[in-house]
């Protein structure tokens, strides 16, 4: 069960791979899709292992990542 989820704005991604270098569960990879600006955008390989830690979003120079985190049942 994923603790988090990220949404990558692929059209904004420049494929710099900084997010890949900081992702603790190592679930980010370069996709084979060229975006309209000619960059290979990053995609999530295995969203179930996302912890919602936000490190990818913190280091993304193009602010293309939005992060959601699951709210634990006990705090609801």
């Amino acid at each position: 069960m994923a603790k988090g989820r990220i949404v990558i704005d692929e059209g904004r991604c420049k494929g710099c791979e900084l997010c890949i270098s900081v992702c603790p569960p190592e679930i980010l990879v370069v996709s084979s899709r060229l975006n309209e600006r000619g960059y290979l955008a990053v995609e999530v390989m295995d969203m179930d292992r996302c912890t919602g830690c936000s490190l990818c979003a913190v280091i993304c120079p193009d602010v293309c990542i939005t992060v959601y985190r699951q709210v634990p049942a006990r705090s609801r």
Partner: protein
Amino acid sequence: MNNAEEKLVFERPRSLTDAHTHYCPGCTHGIAHRLVAEALDELGLRERTLGIAPVGCAVLAYYYFNVDMAEAAHGRAPAMATGMKRANPDKILFTYQGDGDLAAIGAGEIVHAAGRGENITVIFINNAIYGMTGGQMAPTTLEGQKTTSSPMGRDISIAGHPLRMSELLATLDGAAYVARGSLHDPKHIRRAKKAILTAFKVQQAGLGFSMVELLSACGTNWKMDPVEALGWIKDNMVPYFPLGDYKVTDAVKNL
């Protein structure tokens, strides 16, 4: 558990426009822009902030910040900010300047703005090179660093020593808050954000000149890939440009 609730923990700040930046892949200008925008959002300053874009790679910053902005002549952003702030004391003024802008052609303006204690905030991007013009040696270029105008590496017997601007400006009585952060990993990016928040709070409280220097990468002109360039900041720039607060007046401590 398909009905699990989730909360939004990270999104694009409202103080950035939707424009795509022209920066190279992995350029930390984008991170610095985001930190400034988040700080303006969190302090609720977006509607009363005026920014000043520099000459340099960030020359088009006025397309990216969702605040009113002006464009200064090379190095003259602190002088423009001085006039704009004095004419509009209720506005929040920030300049966004690189090392070629602030530490070379604009060295006079920044020293006097800090010395006068102008109530403005300066975001200083130090990437140890002239980025936009093609990677020439800057005042902050490290000893031995190869650039297009120092192909054998910076020779301090000819080009002199790199300038440490935060240390220099911290000696001036008008400077209320001067800090140096780095953008080479998430931990330091978060610390840099705190420094930027403090700098804007200093201005809000009218305590005087505030500046945050950010060690940044220029993978393109350093001839490195983005990940390698961040490592170069950590291994080479941080030892010469130590991180931390260089000037925190008592009034700033009590904020």
